[in-house]
């Protein structure tokens, strides 16, 4: 591994200043569970690593009437260990409890999982399904972006030079809502999603009032299968509507063949996992009703 400089700013402004350093390869470090591995393997390079764990806003974890705010450096364990959050967002908990093993979850952050922009990121489909937004700060000020617009290519996100992901915001769950994330892996742990599916539904009695579906590992970025979710709206909950949505999600997928599965197999799994994630989201929605 090549040497790099290390800075640990205390404020968003200071971090943005360091990240804007001209002519340097700068990377933000939260838990480091992706970055350090990539630096060691030579997959990413950095002259300067900016540790963002000491910045107050990036460590905020707040549940209030507007919803849930998760600072970009908040490690997974803090999210699933909060009983109120776990009750309100079980779909999110599905994802954060899957990222790495227990020790990794002590460090790995939801923000890092998103900013790393891997097509297989476990947290991203459910964030998209939940309609989450990214709050960013940069030299030009603050802005926000829907999560589905944040990842732009494998390993590349929408952050402009000098810009920092500050937090992720998820709206308060509507009554009759439920969400779920499921992934398929050949083993039962320690693996990367061959296909992941996040689903969020709002039920009005036995009819879909809202539905959003997103997929992991089937396109260059986490895939928002908007049409699959839209197809459910106004339809009664049942096998026919679920299967139809799963077929649309399957058609939206653009998987590749690699060591984790063939394109054909992945496309097939899109249907299976969408159906299973929807079924679980619906069951949760019915529980909260």
């Amino acid at each position, binding site marked *: *591994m*090549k040497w790099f400089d290390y800075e640990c700013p205390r404020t968003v402004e200071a971090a943005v200043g360091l990240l804007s350093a001209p002519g340097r390869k700068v990377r933000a470090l939260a838990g480091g569970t992706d970055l350090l591995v990539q630096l060691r393997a030579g997959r990413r390079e950095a002259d300067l690593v900016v540790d963002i764990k000491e910045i107050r806003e990036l460590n905020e974890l707040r549940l209030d009437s507007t919803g849930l705010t998760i600072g970009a450096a908040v490690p997974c364990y803090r999210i699933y260990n909060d009983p109120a959050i776990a009750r309100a967002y079980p779909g999110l908990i599905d994802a954060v409890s899957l990222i790495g093993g227990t020790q990794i979850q002590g460090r790995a952050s939801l923000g890092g999982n998103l900013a790393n922009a891997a097509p297989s990121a476990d947290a991203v489909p459910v964030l998209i399904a939940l309609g989450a937004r990214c709050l960013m700060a940069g030299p030009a000020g603050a802005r926000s972006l829907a999560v589905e617009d944040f990842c732009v290519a494998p390993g590349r996100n929408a952050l402009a030079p000098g810009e920092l992901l500050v937090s992720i915001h998820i709206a308060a769950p509507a009554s009759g809502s439920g969400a779920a994330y499921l992934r*398929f892996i050949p083993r*039962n742990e320690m693996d990367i999603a061959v296909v992941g599916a996040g689903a969020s539904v709002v039920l009005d009695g036995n009819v879909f009032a809202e539905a959003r579906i997103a997929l992991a590992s089937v396109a260059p970025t986490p895939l928002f299968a908007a049409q699959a979710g839209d197809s459910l709206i106004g339809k009664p909950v049942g096998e026919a509507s679920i299967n139809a949505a799963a077929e649309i999600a399957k058609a939206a997928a653009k998987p590749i063949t690699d*060591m*984790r599965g*063939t394109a054909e197999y992945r496309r097939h799994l899109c249907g299976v996992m969408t159906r299973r994630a929807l079924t679980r989201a619906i069951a949760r929605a019915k529980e909260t009703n």
Partner: protein
Amino acid sequence: MSAKAYSVIGTRPIRHDGADKVTGRALYGADFTAAGLLHGAILRSPHAHARIKRIDISRALAYPGVKAVITSADFPEAAERTVDMGEGDTPLSYARGNVLAIDKALYRGHAVAAVAAASLHVAEEAAALIEVEYEPLGCVLTAPEAMLETAPQLHEGKSNLASQFQHVLGDAAKGFAEADVVVEREFNTATVHQGYIEPHNATALWNNDGRVHIWCSTQGSFVVRDCTAIILDIPVSQVKVTPMEIGGGFGGKIPVYLEPVAALLSKKTGRPVKIVMTRKDCFEATGPTPGSFMRVKIGAMKDGRITAAQAYLAFEAGAYPGAMVGPAGMTVFAAYDIPNAVIDGFDVVVNKPSTAAYRAPGAPNAAFATESVIDELAQKLGIDPLEFRLKNAAKEGTRRVDGPKFRRIGCVEVLEAMKNHPHYSAPLGGPNRGRGVAIGFWFNVGLQSSATLNVNADGTVNLVEGSTDIGGTRTSIAMQAAEVLGIPVADVNPSVVDTDTVGFTAVTGGSRTTFATGWAAYEAAQDVVRQMKERAAKLWEIDATAVSFDAGVFTSGERKLTFKELADRLPATGGPIVGRATVNPPGVGGSFAGNIVDVEVDPETGKTSILRFTAVQDVGKAIHPSYVEGQIQGGSVQGIGWALNEEYYMGADGTMMNSSFLDYRMPTALDLPMIDTCIVEVANPGHPFGVRGVGEANIVPPTPAIANAIQRATGVRMTRLPMSPPAIMEALWRESSSQRSSGN
């Protein structure tokens, strides 16, 4: 013999090296350090097959902190000749070439040059500055392709088919003509790695007196000594190897990779040089087990008697000849009494890392083929799969197709234990589930071992031996000495020492250590008893033949001395006692193992869950039953990984795409049920305590047992390993489309 009452054998004492290992104090190879230590890094070929036209090390040498850079040109001049690297005759250029490429890179990851520097980071940076001009050549990755005349040739002027053999018994054509049912299938198995947790490592110091001292993690310190001496063209007496603790080997830590390189770097710098592989290095540049293409055909009569069998075994050797196809030929039909058979074996070089041993090498591949065909035959004949096997099981006196006649073996006893096990008759309890069975054989080896026992005044003994301890062998060897001496095993203090300090001892492999080094300890203890009887005789002023020894007490009439009492009187009766023994035992006992496996296959994803797994093995005599169970469980788990997910996933250019434990999917604890073990003890008449080797036979049956279970769960017969979720899903799709097209 198993019924004999022992006081130590068959108990489960705490292991002697336990405290060091659970506290983290045990020193493994990577822990070694020394004053002035340099760190080595290796530059590896990015091409699977390329001519090396030019290597320019000047920029690397000039890099600050770099002390030396070497290539294969730094090997001392030596005429090409045939050498014995422990697996038979090999050209010296092959032995050297796998350590540092000579003229050609033959696989991706092939070592091309090495750097020694003050820090690892500097060494790595400098290695990247070495300029190598390659002429990339076409690569060939499977045995059937490499055997084509049009295939790229790895070794100039030599066929990729390095060698072949044929075993014939009876008249196969006549046997197949007599058969009522014949099943013939083709099978493919992927290249898989042993996956030991500790990467390869070596530190070498080429001392000013010309002696080379090596500290490394190895299954055989004398193998490292001898192979390093051969490669560096120096006498064996000039090399001393100190084995460090070893974090798993499974056959993969027998060859040398780093030791000669570290030694050459040390020679150039005058300082000790340490090299440690990364996991990627281990996958790309150490010996996995061969991928294989096999065709097996077996015929049987309606009454279930097998009349004939035929096997075609083409194994991938990797870059240099020596695929473990020989053992595959020895084991492929070994479980059965078959009157007519032909076995053809082919050793084929391909552009993958040079293969090495992996736990019963060759046998799991062969068993996957044979036991799948046996299962299908049983189904076609409508006979219970265990009854079918019992009807044809090999027994004492059965002649193997490759020649030897079995002595007393436990094949029938293993099958009976499976049949009588409650698992075999338990309900499966759900849809998409299936139960499979299979058996497997490994012949085990003997080879040379040495041991000495030094008697201490307090009645304890120090056991000095040379078998590096992978599976608790310090204790299983010490227990055999303790049994003879009639003392508690805690009073035997075993040490695994360097090659200057103990007599020649062959590799910890072939399931030989508890058998052969245990036997040496047994003989050394007998030597102690004989000498101590003389001391007692001296004290009692009688003839030594009048002294009896039993359960740790020397007696003659009314007179008696315990082992401890007599040990205290050695100085006064003639001085210290050292018991010593060397053995090269002939009485090796092969081991049979069998599995009963329940699986559930998700019909929508193709994922197989192992619901229940029972592993039965004839171990002869379980010296330390916990370690025997551990071996059975470990072999089973590796077999499960091989069956379900493990494979070298190769790009067309010969790059292994999944060279990490994230993507090379070995099973985790969450993927496995408790592996239920069942020890069968059919004593080996060739060992004083009846020991058979236990380390290997257990990895042989899992792949076919799981394939047979999947067949019963899904109706689909898998003939390719791994039986991963996508592979099963594709087989299910093929099956359903063929059923549709046939109008079913």
